[in-house]
């Protein structure tokens, strides 16, 4: 619940101004707490009150503050202090480090919403035609001379609302447990995905190679083909083994259909990567008719965006893999704007990397057979994540079954 402390001074008792202000707060849908009250010692001495006003949302709070302001309440929150960045990519001393929660900064007597909020960044204020705007900026994006918020004066962070009791996510809580009714969790996710669609928000899928190893690739492929995913984040491995599966029917040399190891199968993913490298990109391999199935094929043919971020242990890598981590992070950053639901399945590092970029308002589900993955994700600040400890094949199979219009082809 957003709140702000205001001061009210003057002959506020005799004039009934205090009563009026408190009445207005309640009438407009807010709540108050009188933190301090000092009665004037004599008739001519003014009285002083300090009132904390809270409201269900920022809009209501602003409305209340405006209404009470006409009757003399003064906002005590100071202005944010702005200091120019000393160099490209260097923040001024004492810069305000962001959380992933909805944030406002007070500049020019106005609370500005911070755009593109993500944790562990700075807040940059820009003036366009004299009007200030605030945006969240990662350290390396900041240019010399840009105005950066320093200290926490004039910064307001709004905790994530408690979800309504009938909200699909509410029953899950936010701890990690293996003891959850899994089909019910999947039903909740399906509901959340439908809601995101209705609200025009994007659905993000973050996946690891275990999806391919466990033979769940065709479920994800079908979900993508049905148009349920807007953007896929993964590493070299998921794409490489998916393509290996499409070309050779194996994942890390193990036949997906039978579960038996193929002779020299361990080379298959290298040969798959090499073949795509020869085409120059996954798209060209698809367009040439060389790659005809799989998750990556589905992404290309349905125009589903994907970001493949490289790592130091990658084979190849595939030509689509972005090997500069800062560049990869920036590319992911572009795609997280407008995401309403994030599904993180069978990957620790990509889940944490994505979690770092997401605002806390994004409904985030982390599915892994290891509870530790979810714990790591939450320990690194993605507190909004709900954990489902289960095998990714079960999860994707159930998700494909419950989502409308998904046709799984084995």
């Amino acid at each position: 619940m957003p709140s702000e402390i205001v001061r009210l001074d003057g002959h506020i008792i005799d004039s009934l101004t205090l009563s009026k202000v408190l009445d207005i707060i309640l009438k407009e849908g807010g709540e108050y707490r009188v933190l301090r009250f000092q009665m004037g010692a004599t008739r001519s001495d003014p009285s002083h009150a300090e009132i904390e006003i809270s409201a269900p949302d920022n809009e209501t709070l602003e409305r209340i503050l405006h209404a009470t302001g006409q009757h003399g309440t003064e906002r005590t929150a100071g202005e944010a202090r702005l200091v120019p960045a000393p160099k490209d990519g260097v923040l001024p001393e004492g810069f305000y480090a962001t959380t992933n929660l909805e944030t406002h900064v007070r500049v020019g007597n106005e609370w500005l919403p911070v755009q593109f909020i993500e944790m562990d960044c700075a807040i940059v204020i820009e003036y366009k035609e004299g009007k200030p705007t605030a945006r969240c900026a990662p350290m390396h994006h900041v240019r010399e001379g840009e105005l950066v918020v320093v200290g926490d004066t004039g910064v307001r962070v709004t905790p994530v609302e408690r979800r309504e009791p009938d909200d699909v996510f509410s029953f899950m809580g936010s701890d990690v447990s293996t003891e959850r009714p899994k089909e019910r969790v999947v039903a909740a996710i399906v509901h959340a995905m439908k809601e995101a669609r209705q609200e025009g928000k994007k659905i993000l899928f973050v996946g690891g190679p275990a999806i391919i190893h466990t033979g769940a690739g065709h479920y994800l492929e079908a979900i993508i083909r049905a148009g349920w995913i807007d953007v896929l984040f993964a590493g070299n491995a998921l794409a490489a083994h998916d393509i290996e599966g499409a070309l050779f029917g194996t994942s890390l040399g193990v036949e997906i259909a039978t579960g038996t190891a193929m002779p020299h199968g361990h080379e298959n993913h290298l040969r798959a990567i090499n073949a795509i490298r020869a085409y120059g990109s996954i798209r060209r391999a698809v367009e040439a008719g060389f790659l005809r199935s799989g998750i990556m094929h589905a992404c290309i043919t349905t125009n589903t965006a994907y970001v493949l971020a490289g790592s130091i242990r990658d084979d190849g890598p595939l030509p689509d893999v972005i090997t500069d981590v800062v560049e990869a992070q920036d590319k992911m950053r572009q795609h997280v704007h407008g995401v309403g639901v994030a599904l993180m399945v069978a990957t620790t590092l990509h889940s944490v990397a994505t979690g770092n970029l997401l605002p806390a308002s994004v409904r985030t589900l982390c599915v892994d057979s290891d509870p530790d993955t979810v714990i790591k994700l939450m320990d690194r600040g993605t507190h909004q994540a709900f954990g489902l400890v289960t095998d990714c094949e079960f999860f994707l199979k159930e998700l494909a079954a419950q989502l409308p219009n998904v046709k799984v082809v084995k």
Partner: protein
Amino acid sequence: MTTPTTIRQVLMCPPTAYDVCYEINPWMHVENRPDRSLAAKQWDALYQVLATRIGLTVHLIPQPPECPDMVFTANAGLVYEGKALLSQFRHPQRQPEVPYFRTWFEQHGYQVITPPPNCHFEGEGDALFVGDVLVAGYLKRSDICSHRWLTDTLGLPVLSLELVDDRWYHLDTCFLPLEAHLVAYYPEAFDDYARIVIENNFETIPVREEEALRFACNAVVIGHQVVLPNGCPQLTDALQQRGFVCYAVEMSEFLKAGGAAKCLTLLLR
């Protein structure tokens, strides 16, 4: 203790450039402009009552052509014990009056004090003494922040009253201090809280709507003499029953700009 009974001097502005050239209250209509010679006669009649019948010293400030509303000297500021608390008008149309009033106050030995930035204050239009209490209106023209400034500057208690009807945009259009604990007022011009404050603090004479529309409350009170717009028999009767001597003046041409006797008169304490 300064009370309205001690007033011996006032400031007026002869209506040489008085006109309705813009509309900043519901009374003003540019197509219904005042008759200038009639306005001059009405102003002169008021001047004569104040100067001759009541015997006040009436100071005059000339009206510059770019300030058609400057005849309403009550909005110049609030004068108290050698201090002139200068106005800061809400509407830009009236802001050009301020330097002329400032100069006059300075030349007459007043310590001129200006309101804090971004805090509107329209002088005696919105701040009237009832005994030793300053009663101040807000929301339509003056901001409530000016009330705190009045308290801090003068060290006096200020009762803040919210005005809710655009037609009674200044406190002096709907609230008339008569004695230390007696006021006349038009209740509908105030919000519920203000009405309670007025009833809790003062003995009251309610003014009816038809007389409030004639600006009955916009009267100059000097001791037990009251100069009020004509056509207000109910209030006149109530005042006479309490021993007040009433002088009725025709104010038709000034009502066209939303002003009457009190608006045309700044009390100099």
